[in-house]
């Protein structure tokens, strides 16, 4: 049985996307632009604008001169790519093999699918009607090869379904551009007077190769079905969702708890078989009155422990308002990660201990927020504030040793506080300084330890750090910003030693 392919061409993908975002634009003239060689060039124009002769490649300033009322928006190719991908995933309802043809097409391998819709014609009509209803202008064609389907979708006049084996006849009336050739080859064909594919489709291969190169032959043979054309099908992300409909609406906390437990058990058994774990999850309740209530949790490590996940959700169950009752519960793992069974003993304690600590942290994060939990790792910077980096994960280990060759204070003020000092000589530690309205007399001092600015990050004067001790035994970390000379340097208190 020959393979059958369906090609869907989104003629106005970019502008249809804009029109869907702001429905007021639907029938208005507007265009999308992007900078190119220092000019703003039209990337896509709406249907009404295209009737006025504006096409991609024109300069925005020219279009504005012709049509002052035109609205312009920046082009967003990334969003278009994403939209096309979403549309491709949606098309999985029509065929299990869907490939994306950037920038504006979808290829469906429909072998063995159309009979479910009662034949190829109702199938094609169903797809185009659904897309038109959704606000997308599409042209779709069915043929034995991707190349022919592409050609007919783009340049076909009447018949959009090409019978099996009829590629040559279907292509012969179409222009050479329908073979997906590059601009150089097309110009050469134009020069030679080839206006239709039928004019050169019978010419022997070697003559064509000498004139137009190998690439043109590949395209032609792909369209005719002599050469295979590989597809990269869209892989939809697996959805981790469990549903629990209830016979009677649930109104009590204990009832919600039972529902939650059942859903978690079902989901976690799936995680066990696939070697995955939940990082974030949403528990939703669909109420009798049509409202939806939901709670969500996050974990520090991918988890598939029913008791632990239940505990995390349980903290938030009181936030769910059942009102007249909840008739359907769903539990979805929105972020799923692999759980490696042999996680290294990174903390050099038993794995059980590590799991207990990470579960404790999940509990704490649920109450006070994940942003309030952190650990510190050494960083290779001399500047005291940047000598440590904050990390949130439990597994990360220090890449370098903690340094103990220079004294560092046990208390570091978040911001250095300016102090007034009395200094006998430049480069000497201060005699006394005033901190919070109190005069501190310095008895002993160490230093200076000069820390230069990290010139690749910021520029400025260096800091000279002194460790000083007062007569009561308190030890401080002071620094002088800058050098004595042209300007008077400033002194700061930065920390306290034991």
């Amino acid at each position, binding site marked *: 049985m020959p393979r059958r392919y369906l090609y869907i061409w989104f003629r106005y993908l970019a502008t249809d996307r804009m029109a869907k975002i702001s429905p007021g634009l639907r029938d208005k003239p507007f265009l999308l632009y992007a900078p190119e060689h220092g000019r703003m060039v039209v990337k896509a124009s709406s249907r009404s604008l295209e009737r006025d002769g504006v096409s991609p490649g024109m300069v925005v300033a020219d279009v504005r001169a012709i049509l002052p009322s035109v609205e312009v928006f920046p082009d967003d190719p990334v969003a278009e790519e994403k939209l096309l991908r979403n549309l491709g995933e949606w098309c999985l309802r029509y065929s299990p093999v869907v490939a994306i043809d950037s920038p504006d097409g979808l290829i469906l391998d429909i072998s063995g699918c159309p009979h479910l819709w009662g034949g190829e014609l109702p199938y094609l009509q169903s797809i185009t009607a659904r897309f038109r209803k959704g606000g997308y202008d599409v042209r779709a064609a069915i043929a034995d090869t991707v190349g022919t389907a592409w050609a007919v979708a783009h340049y076909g006049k009447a018949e959009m379904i090409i019978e099996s084996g009829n590629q040559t006849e279907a292509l012969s009336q179409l222009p050479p551009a329908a073979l997906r050739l590059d601009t150089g080859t097309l110009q050469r064909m134009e020069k030679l007077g080839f206006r239709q594919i039928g004019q050169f489709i019978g010419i022997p291969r070697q003559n064509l190769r000498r004139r137009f190169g190998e690439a043109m032959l590949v395209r032609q043979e792909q369209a005719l079905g002599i050469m295979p054309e590989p597809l990269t099908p869209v892989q939809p992300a697996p959805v981790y969702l469990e549903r629990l409909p209830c016979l009677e609406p649930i109104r009590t906390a204990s009832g919600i708890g039972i529902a939650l437990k059942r859903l978690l058990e079902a989901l976690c058994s799936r995680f066990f078989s696939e070697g995955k774990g939940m990082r974030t999850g949403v528990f939703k309740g669909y109420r009798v009155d049509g409202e939806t209530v939901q709670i969500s949790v996050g974990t520090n490590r991918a988890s598939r422990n029913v008791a632990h996940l239940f505990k995390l959700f349980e903290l938030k169950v009181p936030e769910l308002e059942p009102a007249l009752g909840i008739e359907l519960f769903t539990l979805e793992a929105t972020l799923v990660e692999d759980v490696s069974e042999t996680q290294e003993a990174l903390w050099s304690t038993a794995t059980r*201990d590590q799991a207990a*600590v990470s579960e404790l942290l999940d509990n*704490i994060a649920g*109450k*006070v927020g994940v942003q309030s939990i952190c650990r510190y790792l*050494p960083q290779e910077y001399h500047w005291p504030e940047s000598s*440590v980096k904050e990390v949130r994960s439990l597994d990360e280990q220090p890449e370098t040793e903690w340094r103990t060759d220079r004294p560092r*204070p046990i208390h570091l003020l978040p911001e250095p506080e300016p102090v007034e000092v009395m200094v006998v000589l430049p480069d000497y530690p201060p005699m006394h300084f005033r901190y919070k309205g109190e005069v501190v007399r310095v008895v002993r001092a160490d230093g200076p330890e000069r820390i230069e600015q990290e010139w690749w990050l910021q520029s400025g004067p260096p800091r000279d750090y002194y460790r000083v*001790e007062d007569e009561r035994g308190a030890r401080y970390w002071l620094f002088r910003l800058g050098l004595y000379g042209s300007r008077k340097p400033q002194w700061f208190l930065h920390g306290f030693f*034991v």
Partner: protein
Amino acid sequence: MNELAEKKAIIRSLKEEILSVEGFGTGPDSRMLDFGLGPLNIAFPGGAFPVGAIHELISSTEACAAAANGFVAGLLSTLMKNGGVCLWVSTGRKLFAPALKFFGAEPHRVIFIDVKREKEALWVMEQGLKCNSLAAVVAELRDISFAESRRLQLAVETSKVTGFLHRQRPRTENTLACVSRWKIRPLASRAGELPGVGFPCMEVELVKIRNGRPGIWQFEWKNGAFKVVADRSRMVEKPPLTQKQRHYA
């Protein structure tokens, strides 16, 4: 003779029981940790630093707070020696993590939790104390009531985690259910005639210790261990406490 030995064994077991009723963790490992506190050990009931209990530290100035954290860091190094993890809860933390390394504790094995309100800090501390996979829990906060401290003590009694409650400039020095109360003050370092600042030096005052003997000692942190400054230490000799006073101590 045999009878006497039997009696002694009974008395020893009764003493252990009393200690555990008083809230001292008398697990099998509590004797094995040596904090290097030397003569301070005689102040504790049983002659060893009580682990599996909550210790309260009070500091009145910022320099005292730094000294107290240094003292705690020195104790943590022993508690975390066999790869344990420590939880450091605080409201308005100033602790600079790399400094823990100077006191022998691995800074990357300390998990910091910074919360805004003291109620949250207490909740986190209680959760931490209930988790027996932790080596220690340190909380820096200002005020705590007797009832709240009793909850913490109850959590500790089952899990045997050591807790430190560091109170900076509390409004009142109210009685708590903790086994001890400490006041740590910085001392001038003993560099002698040499120029510069010497080793960290502190005065450790054990204000209260349940069923023990309070006193004042002076320590220096030198070569990765506490070292008693011999010529300055003194024990506060107090008349033996009556049963009632002991109950509230």
